[in-house]
């Protein structure tokens, strides 16, 4: 199923572009490390988003030109970034006050598993040998107004990532609002997973078969 999944549906860039369409102008946004970072490249013209990075910057800009960066101006992924005009620096307690206090409009995260009740698992497989590391994920999902997940629909082994109930350790309970995969856009509602949009050429049944809990049509 792996190759099959990789061949159809949106590319990563297209997933990011689709997600970016749903972010209103003027939103304060925190993008997780990895695929979520792609979203910033696809914000529609005429919209301005303000990016928050939890290590203490509001108004994060793109990567610096080679050699022009400052090793002390980095994002949460510890990569060098820039600051836009109108940016502000602050300390970690203030930064997480923004997160926990509900001031960030949207956070986009990757996922290992998302359950149909909105539970998220994205920090640990719970395996004995693993080094546990959680970072800011638990604070983000607990505090940010909307939390979107962007992820491949299934694992590399072809297992659904959208599940009835997470088997990996949770990051947060009932925290996810919407999931963007290469196959579809899916809302978490009180009734469970609900289809918002199919990727071009992908059928409802195709997505439904690869989803580990009932998928409702709109």
């Amino acid at each position, binding site marked *: 199923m792996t190759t099959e999944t990789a061949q159809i549906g949106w590319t990563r860039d297209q997933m990011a572009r689709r997600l970016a369409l749903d972010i209103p102008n003027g939103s304060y946004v925190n993008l997780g490390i990895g695929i979520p970072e792609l979203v910033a490249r696809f914000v529609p013209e005429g919209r*301005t988003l*303000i990016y928050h990075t939890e290590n203490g*910057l509001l108004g994060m800009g793109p990567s610096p030109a080679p050699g022009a960066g400052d090793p002390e101006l980095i994002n949460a992924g510890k990569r060098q970034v820039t600051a*836009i005009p109108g940016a*502000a620096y602050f300390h970690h307690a203030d930064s997480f006050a*923004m997160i926990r206090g509900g001031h960030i409009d949207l956070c986009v995260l990757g996922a290992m598993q998302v359950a149909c009740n909105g539970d998220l698992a994205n920090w640990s497989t719970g395996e004995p040998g693993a080094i546990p590391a959680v970072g800011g994920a638990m604070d983000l999902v607990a505090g940010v107004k909307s939390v979107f997940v962007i992820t491949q629909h299934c694992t590399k082994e072809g297992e659904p990532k959208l599940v009835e109930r997470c088997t990996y350790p949770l990051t947060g309970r009932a925290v996810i609002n919407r999931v963007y995969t290469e196959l579809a856009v899916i809302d978490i509602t009180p009734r469970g997973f609900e289809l918002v949009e199919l990727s071009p050429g992908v059928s409802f049944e195709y997505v439904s078969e690869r989803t580990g809990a009932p998928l409702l049509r709109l």
Partner: protein
Amino acid sequence: MIDKRVQGPAQAVADIPDGATVMIGGFGEAGSPIELIHALIDQGARGLTVISNNTGSGEVGLAALLRAERVAKVVCSFPRTANSTVFPDLYRKGRIELELVPQGTLAERIRAGGAGIPAFYTPAAVGTPLAEGKPSQTFDGKEYLLERWLRADFALIKGRCADAHGNVVYNKTARNFGPIMAMAANVAIVQVNSIVQPGQIDPETVVTPGIFVDRVVEVAQPLHESELVAAGASYP
């Protein structure tokens, strides 16, 4: 393009409804957003709950808002100052409710509201009448009171300078409650002496990041409460 500028104080406070909870910055006259308060008087909202460290002086600003009987309740640490007659008068007549909060607890409850901390423990007021009815707990052998966050529908704040993103810097001890009230209100409205272009405030020196601010309004020459009081002024 982010632009949080609004035309004037009247527009800035136009949608504050009857019964709203409003945080009003300032410690005495320092940081008191007098033009926003006067606009709120003109606007006419009633039955307000006001969270502010003091209750104003003379017959202008916050005291004038109280005098106009727009305020049902104040949450406050020190409602009694020199030249403060409006609140004592209303309070003795039973026409205004008072929740008295120690100043540091007031500040921390507001900060907690902005930071998403629903409750915290503080040593202040243990063993005093202000501890009555509050849960307490002992940590490491010392007793603390449980205090709840304070949040508001609106905050009226005075800064020195802002940009269109809502980044704010303050003037000296007028900073006081502004930064934390901006965090704790759903709609934070800031009057400033001047509005500049984004980038003109050094990002290292921003005190209130724009994420906490919804509207900025320029009041180039704000009135000084003490001068008005000395001149015997009243509003409206």
